[in-house]
C-alpha cells in the first residue's frame, strides 16, 4: 500500500514535471518581460489617425493594427484617435499614421506640417502605388523632401523571380495609324515583392537590442538625403542589393509584364525601406516605413496559431516597439520582450519565393 502510494506520488511528480517541461519556457519569460516593461511607455499620449483609410487600432482582422496597439497599450501608453478637424492636440507625444489610403487634403497637410515643424513626432507607414496617398512630388512628401531630405518614392520594391511566358501589353497605335501587330509571348520574370531583410543600421537607436530579420509585403523605397543639415535623416533598414524600385506597377498588375527601365525605375541596389529623421533644434522626429503591412495583423504582426502571441515576424514587432520608444524619447523596448515560438502556418515563405499577388495587401493567412 505504501509502495503503491509512493508510486502514485512519483507518477504525479513525473506528470507535473513533464507538464512543466511541455510548456514552452519562453511563454513565461515573455509574459514576465512584457509585464516588467509595461511602464516603458507609461504616460505617453499616442494619437492614431484613421480618417484617411489607415489601418485601424480597433481592427482585429488581417488589415488591422490591433496587435501593435495592444502591445503599446500594454506598455502603458495612452491611445487616442486623432480628430483632424481640431488638429493634433498640444499634448500629443506621437502621431501614428499607419498607411493612409487617401491622400491628405491641403488643410490636413498644413495641420500636420505645423505639428511637425513645432516639434511633433510622427510614425508614418506609407504604402507604394497603386495607393494614391502621399505621392512623392506633392503635398507632405514634397515638404519633407524640401526641408528634411526624406520622402517615399513612387515605386514598388521588387526583384526578379522565376521566368514565365507573358504576352507583352499591346502597343498604343499612333493617331491615323493601323493597330500594331500583337507581340508574341516572351519569357518575363515574375516580381518578388514580399521579402525579408537583415540589412539594418545597428547604430541607430531604433535598432538597439535588435536581432533577426524584418519582413516586408510590397514596399516603396525611400529617397534619403543624408547630407548634414538641421534635419538629420538616417536610413535604418535597407533591402538586399538585388532589389530595384519598379515605377510602373500598374502595367505589371494588368499584364504581368515588367522590364527594368534604367532612368525610370529606381536604380538597383540597397534601397532604404525605413528611415528616421531628427531635428534636434525643433525636437521633431519622424520614422518613415515604406510599407503599411509592416505592422498590420496579417502582415508583420501575423501570428501562428492565429490570435496568439506567437508572432511569425518577431523582428517586425520589436522594431515597431523600438521605433515608437525612440519617437517618444523612451528607453528601447525590444530587448525587454520576447515571444513564444510560432507554430506551423500557411503563411508564404518569404524571399525568394515568387508572390505575384496584387499589391499592397499581403496574402491572408488561413484562419485570420
Amino acid at each position, binding site marked *: 500500500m505504501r509502495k503503491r502510494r509512493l508510486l502514485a506520488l512519483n507518477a504525479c511528480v513525473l506528470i507535473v514535471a513533464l507538464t512543466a517541461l511541455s510548456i514552452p519556457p519562453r511563454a513565461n519569460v515573455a509574459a514576465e518581460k512584457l509585464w516588467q516593461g509595461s511602464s516603458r511607455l507609461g504616460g505617453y499620449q499616442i494619437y492614431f489617425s484613421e480618417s484617411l483609410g489607415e489601418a485601424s487600432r480597433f481592427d482585429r482582422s488581417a488589415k488591422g493594427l490591433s496587435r501593435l496597439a495592444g502591445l503599446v497599450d500594454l506598455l502603458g501608453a495612452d491611445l487616442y484617435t486623432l480628430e483632424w478637424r481640431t488638429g493634433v492636440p498640444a499634448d500629443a507625444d506621437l502621431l501614428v499614421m499607419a498607411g493612409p489610403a487617401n491622400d491628405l487634403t*491641403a488643410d490636413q*497637410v498644413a495641420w500636420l506640417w505645423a505639428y511637425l515643424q513645432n516639434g511633433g513626432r510622427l510614425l508614418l507607414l506609407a504604402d507604394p502605388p497603386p495607393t494614391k496617398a502621399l505621392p512623392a512630388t506633392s503635398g507632405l512628401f*514634397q515638404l519633407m523632401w524640401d526641408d528634411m531630405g526624406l520622402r517615399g518614392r513612387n515605386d514598388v520594391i521588387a526583384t526578379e523571380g522565376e521566368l514565365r511566358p507573358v504576352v507583352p501589353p499591346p502597343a498604343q497605335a499612333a493617331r491615323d495609324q493601323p493597330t500594331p501587330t500583337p507581340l508574341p509571348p516572351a519569357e518575363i520574370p515574375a516580381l518578388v515583392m514580399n521579402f525579408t531583410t537583415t540589412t539594418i543600421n545597428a547604430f541607430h537607436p531604433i535598432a538597439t537590442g535588435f536581432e533577426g530579420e524584418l519582413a516586408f509585403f510590397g514596399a516603396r523605397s525611400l529617397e534619403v538625403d543624408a547630407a548634414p543639415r538641421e534635419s538629420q535623416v538616417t536610413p535604418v533598414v535597407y533591402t538586399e542589393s538585388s532589389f530595384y524600385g519598379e515605377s510602373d506597377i500598374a502595367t505589371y498588375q494588368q499584364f504581368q509584364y515588367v522590364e527594368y527601365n534604367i532612368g525610370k525605375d529606381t536604380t538597383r541596389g540597397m534601397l532604404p525601406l525605413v528611415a528616421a529623421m531628427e531635428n534636434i533644434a525643433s525636437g521633431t522626429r519622424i520614422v518613415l516605413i515604406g510599407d503599411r503591412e509592416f505592422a498590420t495583423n496579417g502582415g508583420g504582426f501575423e501570428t501562428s496559431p492565429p490570435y496568439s502571441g506567437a508572432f511569425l515576424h518577431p523582428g517586425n514587432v520589436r522594431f515597431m516597439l523600438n521605433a515608437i520608444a525612440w519617437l517618444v524619447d523612451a528607453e528601447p523596448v525590444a530587448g525587454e520582450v520576447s515571444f513564444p515560438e510560432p507554430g506551423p502556418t500557411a503563411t508564404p515563405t518569404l524571399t525568394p519565393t515568387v508572390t505575384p499577388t496584387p499589391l499592397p495587401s499581403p496574402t491572408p493567412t488561413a484562419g485570420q
Partner: protein
Amino acid sequence: MMSGQMLLRSLAALGVAFLLIAPLVPARAQEGQPPLVVFIEDEQLQTSSVLDSGPDGVTRLEQIFQSYGARTRWLTLSDPLPRDTAVIVLVRPLRALPADQLARLWVQLTRGSHLLLAIDPSGLTSARPDRSLAANTDKANSGLSILLDRYYGIRLEDTFLVAPWFTHGSITSQLTTFSYVHAEDFATHPVTEPLVALRLPVLVWGARTLTVEPLGLGSHAAPLLYTLSGYGETNTKVFAATEPAPLEVNLGQDRVGRLLIGALGENTHLDSRVVVFGDSEIVQNGYGLDINSRTQAPLHWGNRLLTERAVAWLLGVPQEEWPGLPEGYTWLAVDGESEDWPENTLELEDPSDTPIARYDIQRVSAFQDNGYLYLRVETAQPPASVVRLTLGIENTFDGITDVTFALDEGQIVAQDSTGMFSLPDGAFAVGDVIEARLPLRVTGEGGLVSAVCLADRRTDPSSAPVDCTGQPPAIVPVARTQAPVETWHAPMPLVTVYSTRAEAVNLRAQPNTDSAVLDVLVNGRTLAAVGRTESGEWIQVQNAEVTGWLAAFVARANVEVQTLPVVAP
C-alpha cells in the same frame, strides 16, 4: 583653475547650445527689431508683385507697411518663411495654393504670424494680356478656406459679386466689374470706424463674397465690408465666351442679401490675426490704392483708409495712432451729432418764434468744401424725427432763389429751372441736430443760403412750414478742404477713366472736343454715368463736383453704353 582645453570645450559646448536654442526663439519680431512683413511672390500663383510699381503691383501697399516702420521683403512659399515674420501678405493668388505651400503658410500662422489675404473670385478673366486665363483661385472647400474658417471664422465663398447693372459684356474685364461696397455699420470694428462715420465707400473690381462667423473656439471675427446691392453668382459659366449662363439670381444657389466682401479674424490660441478681402484690387496700385497724379492724393479714400487701418491692426499699432483722414479733408459725419463740426462756419441765429420747440429753429450753420455744402440746424429741443428741411440757394445774387431742396429721412429732392430731381449722393440725418450734405454741382459754388424751413413731412409740402429763419440770405463760407468722397456712390452705372494713350483725359462741358475743359481726369478715376449722346460716342458723367462729358473710348463703363439714357447736351 580651468585649463585652456577645458575652456575651449566649455566655449564649444556653449556655442552648440546656442545653435540649438537659437531656432527655438518664437515667431514675431525680436525685441527692438522692426516687424518683418513678407510679401509672397510666386510666378505659378501669379501673385500681385511687390516688385511691380504698375497698376497690378502692390508697391503702395508695401509703402503703407513701411510707413509704420515695418521691414519688408518678398519670398516664395517654396521655402520656409522666417520665424520672425510678423505679417504675411498674399495678394491676388490666381491659382489655388498647393498643399505644400499652404502648409508653409500655416506653419507660420501657428507661430503667431498674421496674414493679409486679398483674393479674387474664380472665373473672371483679367484684362491684362499676360493673364488671359481665367482665375482659378482657392475654392470654398479648399485647404486655405477650411483653415481660415476653422481657426478664424472666415470662409471663402465660390461666388462672383454681380452688381445690378452688370452685363456679360462688362464682366469680361476687371476694369468694368467695379462696384462700391460699404464699411460694415451693424457692428463697426475700429478698423472701419472712419469709413462708417464718413460713409466712405470702398471700390472693388470683381469681388467674391465671404462668410463670417463672429464667435468660435478660440477665435472671433468681424465683417468689414458689405454690399446690399447685387448678388453672389455661383455659376462660373456666366463667364463662358459662348452661350454664357444668364446673369440672374438662382434662389437657393446664389448668395443674396447682405453680402460680405471683407473681414478680419483673430485666433487667441495661435495669437494670430488675419484680414481677408474678397477682391485683390482693393489694395493694388492702379485700383484701390491709385492716386491722383497731379495732387498725389488717393483717388479712393475708402480703400486707402481701410488698408491703412487694417495694416495698423495687423502690426499691432496702438489704436490712437491709426490714421484717419489727413489734414485738408473734411471729417464730418452726417449723423445728427454736431461734435465734429468745424469752427468758422456760417452762423444764422433765429429767435424762438414758434411754440413747437422741436421745430423751432435756433441756429443754422453751413460751410462748403470742394465737393459738398454742409448744413446744420439746431432747434429749441431735439428735432422731431419726422421733420422735413427745405432750403433755398441763390447763386446769381439777384434776389431769386436758383435751386431749392427738400430733405427728409426718406429722400433728398432738388428743384431748379430744369425741373425736379433726386440726389442719391446727398445725405440727411436727424439726431440732436439736423445735418445735411448737398453736392456742389447742384447747389452751385459760393451761393447764398436763403430761407431755411422746418415742417412735418407728413403734412402737404405746399402747406406752410412750422418755422423758417427770418434773416436775409447769407454767403456760405468755403473751407479749404476736400470732400473725401469724390464720386457718387449710389448703386448705379459707373465709368472709370481708362486711356491707353495718356495718363489723364479731359472732361468736357459739351460732347465735343471744342467745348470747355471742365476738369482733367486721371486714369482710374470713377464717376457716375448718367447719360449718353445719341451715337454713344460721349458719356455724360458726374460726381459731387461736376457734371460733364467724357469720350466713350477713354471710359470703361460697367454697363453697355447704349443702355444709358440719351441726354440732350
